[in-house]
């Protein structure tokens, strides 16, 4: 995180989102600065994934504003938001089950930078050798964890400015989780990739992130640097320690 471009890339203010008649986000404010890794932690059902989906415009925030790179994207259709080089690996993976691994990755690559395709795909295969082994297999026949890798790789293929990952560690073997988190750190350090990370694995996430937010029942209750939150006794009790009842 270099100090000079410490301007917010993404600003969410007072975002309220509903699912039908149920309010999921009750006015959320967050900032993600350029070149930062920001994590959002919280219990299941707190609204973390909803916030991520709201940023992508599906569902739309009924109130509040979402500004990305100086542009108000609150009312933009999802596909136009994606064109602003926000990539996400959503909850439930959402890979294309009848397309091969290679085709899935091709779908992820944005059209305007095809010259990077070969290098990018090589990088994905270095990151996830498993995907290379499965290159011509249909997405739907991959195991759960492999699909997760594919979803992350597909998001990375877009060469995003803002990468949003919803529980990248879900269903992955400890070794792979480590590799993914290392890769995120590396991409951030080398290319200045901005990352917004939703994680259940609060310990790893906070360790990786520059800053973090804690969400409870659709409201941000705490924020601070990753280390501050790691040390915070409340956070530790609620999200880090399992043994104590």
């Amino acid at each position: 995180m270099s100090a000079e471009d410490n301007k917010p890339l993404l600003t969410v203010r007072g975002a309220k989102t509903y699912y039908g008649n149920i309010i999921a986000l009750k006015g959320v404010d967050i900032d993600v600065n350029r070149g930062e890794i920001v994590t959002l932690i919280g219990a299941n059902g707190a609204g973390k994934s909803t916030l991520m989906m709201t940023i992508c415009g599906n569902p739309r925030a009924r109130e509040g504003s979402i500004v990305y790179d100086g542009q108000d994207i609150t009312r933009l259709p999802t596909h136009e938001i994606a064109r602003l080089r926000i990539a996400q690996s959503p909850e439930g993976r959402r890979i294309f089950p009848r397309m091969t691994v290679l085709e899935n990755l091709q779908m992820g690559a944005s059209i305007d930078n095809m010259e990077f395709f070969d290098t990018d795909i090589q990088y994905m295969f270095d990151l996830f050798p498993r995907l290379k082994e499965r290159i011509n297999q249909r997405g739907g026949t991959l195991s759960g964890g492999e699909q997760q890798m594919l979803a992350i790789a597909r998001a990375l293929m877009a060469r995003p400015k803002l990468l949003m990952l919803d529980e990248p560690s879900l269903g992955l073997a400890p070794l792979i989780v480590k590799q993914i988190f290392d890769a995120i750190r590396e991409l951030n350090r080398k290319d200045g990739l901005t990352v917004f990370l939703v994680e259940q694995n609060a310990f790893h996430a906070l360790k990786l992130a520059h800053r973090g937010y804690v969400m409870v029942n659709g409201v941000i209750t705490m924020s601070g640097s990753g280390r501050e939150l790691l040390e915070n006794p409340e956070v530790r009790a609620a999200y880090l320690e399992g043994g104590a009842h």
Partner: protein
Amino acid sequence: MNSAVKTNERAGIDFGRALKDGVIVGIIAFALLGPLVGLKTEQNMSNELIVQNRLGLAAILSVIVGVGRFLLSAFIYPRIAARGNRSKAAATLAELEARAKLTQGLSIVGLIFLFVYPLLIISLFGVQGSIKWVDNYGVQILIYVMLGWGLNIVIGLAGLLDLGYVAFYAVGAYSYSLLAINFHLSFWVLLPIAGMLAAFWGIILGFPVLRLRGDYLAIVTLAFGEIIRLVLINWKAFSGGSAGISSIPKVTMFGIYSFDVSAPNNFAKAFHLAASSAYYKVFLYYIILMLALLTAFITLRLRRLPIGRAWEALREDEVACRSLGINTTNTKLTAFAIGAMFGGFAGSFFAARQGFVSPESFVFMESAVIVAIVVLGGMGSMIGVALAAVAMIGGTELLRELDFLKAVFGNDFNPDQYRMLIFGLAMVGIMVWKPRGFVSARQPTAFLFKRKTVSGDLVKEGHG
């Protein structure tokens, strides 16, 4: 937490934008209407085609379209959007409950109304005048209510999209006709037999299509419906071909009274009433009402039994069902069979009522209408399906009465021809307004503390 820095302004009316919309739409309308309406070819006295210039009319119409669009953009759309937001936010659980209560109240009132309906009509229009209202509206609608409820088991509960339901209706109708004519059996004996035969054909159809899902299931069931119809047309020795079967015996009042004019125990004669077919129609009305209520009663009971829950679970997730030890093959077959049985009942009633059956009555359009009733009503909801049947069948019947439109469009205007057009538009409209049908919420079949209505958003539609 500071208040929202920027909120999108969506209050206030954007007249500039609305005006732009209106002008653009007006221009498009003129571009289309200019050649379509503005130029008309006519034959003159010497049989030559001449072009009549009616651009003025086209311009007037275009202005109307443009102004209409302006009004929509300026007033109607913002209001709809605002209401959409509000109603979504306000449709709380309490509202769902209230809606469920309303539906319940509605069904009781509806039930009472159904029982007194023929009497009401007779008192209003007299015995002879009641025929149209009891037969064309009452009986006709109730047949479709029953068919809708029968198909509701297959589509609404089990989530299997069956586009060939009319086949079972045909099986019921032909079973009754053929058995009644050849073996001189009474309607009351043949009714269960027709139902059983239809159920048997339901199982026959069920077996090959069980592995299919979604679109494939729909296509095969559609084909099945057509096969039955084509067999009926071509197997002349059996079914009389496209000429059909006529002089099918009427229903008797359990053998005590007959409705045949020549019969010694004729109902009207026995009670010294003026001869009229109205009595038979009223009698038929009560039969189909009882049959429909029987369907409803059994369906409601089945929903509370393990088989009904298994159907709904099947609609929600078939794989999970299998992991819980449910034999999904049998479960699907029972859904097909029971749905088909009710179709068969309705079919034999139909044959007895018409006195004549031919393959013409069992075209794909019939299946489509029944499926539309189920979808429109809200899959799985009894009251919704009933309302949809009233709207669709009653509505199309009502459109026959639109003679007053002749005053507007001239004497050669035939409202009947526009029935399907208006009907289609109404369907599109309703599906936009209520995409999950009239009643989308689901009533749980069991509860521990309190019966809470399940919002339609969570209920799955099945994958075939």
